């Protein structure tokens, strides 16, 4: 009845270009869309596609992640059979600070025992509401060893935000994954999602560990694509990669487009997340809110336009927020003005302060920062 697939979300993502948001948290738990974390979209897509067994290969910053995951309960993954499993590095070994391939080593037995035939390998930092059931059907029908999921891009030369990401190359039947350097107008973007037979997965990981030349799990797979029966499948769903602050900001504001929001929040099932028990938001006399996404628990007296407001944000009298992303618990006092900014959790912007960033480089205010 159910597909025999286990999910594996590999959190060994590059965080170089989004350092501001990942100082205290992994990319997986970067807040997104008013009440979610990035990883919620991948977890919910998997759960809504009837994948009942999800492993998360973690690297560091466990606190934020564990708080959020809560043993999987928000995704109904706190199960006796299957469910959520966090794969920790064995920090006793010397390999603790090596690549994700080494981190996987102490978990190989776990994958062997798992009663599934296929693994869906993904990352946490691609935002989409993805129907993995349909994608898996193609993988299964073709009896592929590996199915590389991709996303078609038509305007590649102008998409600066996709530079440096994976790009799919074909040479007859052979599939390669290279880097997008912006030279091609139309191409298939690699989104780091693979269906892979468990047997092949274990074979590749073992081989790579034995050879000892590699430290990256995805690298090990990419370099061996030519040795297996590989097919590709281009997803219809919108999938947005988040590797940089600019990508984060753009992806955030895109949710204000109604059609995109509908797809992202509802198309293949709801998006689940940790609940916070905030009351409904209160709009007071004098508030002016336009084209904005507002989470619960806010009290709004001022003006909010083209912005994403997370839970429990207070916006004072005559305060103005435009084109900004404001995280949970921020306090924007009376008469403050904020434009093109990303405000991290519990930031405090005092009376009448003016913060002005740019659409190309949003102004960032760190977690708990107080601008008095």
């Amino acid at each position, binding site marked *: 009845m159910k597909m025999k697939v286990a999910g594996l979300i590999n959190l060994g993502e590059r965080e170089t270009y989004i350092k501001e948001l990942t100082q205290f948290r992994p990319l997986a738990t970067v807040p997104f869309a*008013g*009440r979610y974390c990035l990883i919620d979209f991948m977890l919910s897509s998997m759960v809504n596609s009837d994948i009942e067994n999800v492993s998360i290969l973690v690297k560091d910053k466990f606190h934020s992640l564990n708080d959020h995951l809560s043993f999987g309960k928000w995704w109904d993954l706190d199960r006796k059979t299957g469910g959520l499993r966090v794969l920790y590095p064995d920090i006793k070994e010397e390999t603790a600070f090596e690549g994700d391939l080494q981190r996987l080593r102490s978990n190989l037995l776990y994958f062997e025992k798992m009663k599934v035939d296929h693994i869906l390998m993904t990352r946490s930092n691609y935002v989409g509401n993805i129907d993995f059931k349909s994608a898996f059907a193609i993988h299964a029908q073709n009896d592929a060893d590996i199915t590389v999921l991709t996303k078609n891009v038509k305007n590649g030369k102008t998409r600066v935000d996709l530079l440096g990401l994976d790009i799919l190359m074909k040479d007859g039947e052979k599939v390669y994954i290279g880097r997008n350097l912006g030279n091609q107008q139309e191409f298939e973007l690699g989104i780091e999602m693979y269906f892979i037979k468990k047997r092949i997965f274990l074979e590749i990981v073992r081989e790579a560990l034995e050879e000892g030349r590699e430290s990256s799990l995805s690298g090990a797979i990419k370099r061996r694509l030519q040795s297996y029966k590989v097919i590709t499948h281009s997803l219809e769903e919108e999938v947005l990669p988040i590797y940089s602050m600019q990508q984060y900001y753009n992806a955030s504001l895109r949710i204000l487009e109604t059609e995109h929001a509908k797809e992202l929040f509802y198309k293949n099932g709801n*998006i689940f997340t940790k609940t916070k*028990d905030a009351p*409904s938001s*209160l*709009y007071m006399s004098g508030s002016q809110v336009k084209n904005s996404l507002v*989470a619960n*628990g806010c009290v709004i007296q001022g003006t909010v336009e083209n912005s994403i407001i997370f839970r429990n944000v207070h916006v004072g009298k005559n305060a103005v927020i435009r084109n900004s992303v404001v995280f949970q618990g921020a306090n924007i006092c009376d008469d403050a003005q904020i434009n093109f900014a990303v405000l991290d959790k519990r930031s405090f912007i005092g009376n009448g302060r003016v913060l002005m960033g740019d659409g190309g480089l949003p102004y960032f205010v760190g977690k708990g920062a107080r601008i008095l």
Partner: protein
Amino acid sequence: MIKDKMIAMLLAGGQGARLKQLTEKNAKPAVHFGGKYRIIDFALSNCANSRITNVGILTQYQPLALSMHIGIGGPWDLNRHKGGVEILPPHMTTEGGQWYDGTANAIYENLNYIDIQDPEYVLILSGDHIYKMDYRKMLEFHIEKEAAVTISAITVPLYEASRFGILNTREDGSIYEFEEKPKEPKNDLASMGVYIFDWKILREWLIKDHDNPDSFHDFGKNILPGMLEEGRRLYAYNYAGYWRDVGTVESYWQSNMDLLDPENTLNLFDEDWRIYTKNYDVPPQYLSETCHVERALINEGCIVHGNIKNSILSTSVVVEEGAYVEDSILLPGAHIGKNAVLKRVIVLSHEDVEEGTKLGDGEITIFGSVDHGLIL
């Protein structure tokens, strides 16, 4: 045996017929309130915040939405291995079926359940009041006074006192007279229907009352006056704060509207006394370019293109462009079509107000024939 000092028994079986279509297919405690909540969330959250981890919920009338809402008790941290929440419906025995007949009878029928919990004190609650209260403080008072029963009481306007059970007390809070809905009240101290009993004493009385064919098996009418007569120590515990019995459409509407005042004393925003409820996995609310919102309480999942004034929008309500909603309560999933005009209207859940409809005059109007109490 599970051993908790005090357990709560929450009466949630009533219909609340004066709420009309709101309760025709749904028990009053499960009626939506305040954009996000159901009425019973207040009593349950009071239990959670008072660290009462053992709550029996007595159901009888149309319990489906209620029991699906409570589920495994997670939102109130009552999903426990020991104690936790237990739903107690009427049931059959070898002697046949027995519906609950009066508040005291409902507790009597679950004597066995309470005996298993083996508490010292039993807190009797009603699932249809809006308030915040720390029952621990009331228990401390009860213990200090060495009372047989302590009744939580609130001061009401004297002209309204005849609607309530009125407590006539001495200076120390001890009760010397109990009048159920007196025509000429001597006092303005009304019972809130929140009682702490010593379980041993209550247990005796429930059995005695059950055997009395003349009894209505009601706490207010029979048990409390009877105990007073017997010379037991009854005390009134003075509560000051927001408390409403939202028993009529008008009081239900008014109590919702109270929430629009940012200084309201119920204060849903107090992080030290959260009101918990079941969560629905819907996105934040979206207020569009064309909307105008002034004084409103809006919940997750809403999409607002129209104009909102002095109103409450519950989960996943949609208000289309040009619509005008004033002094109204829109229940979950309600859809307000373009250019519709609503004043003083309660729109039942999942009802569709068609484009251009004009609704409401002086009286509060309920739109929709029946509310099943379901959200998604």
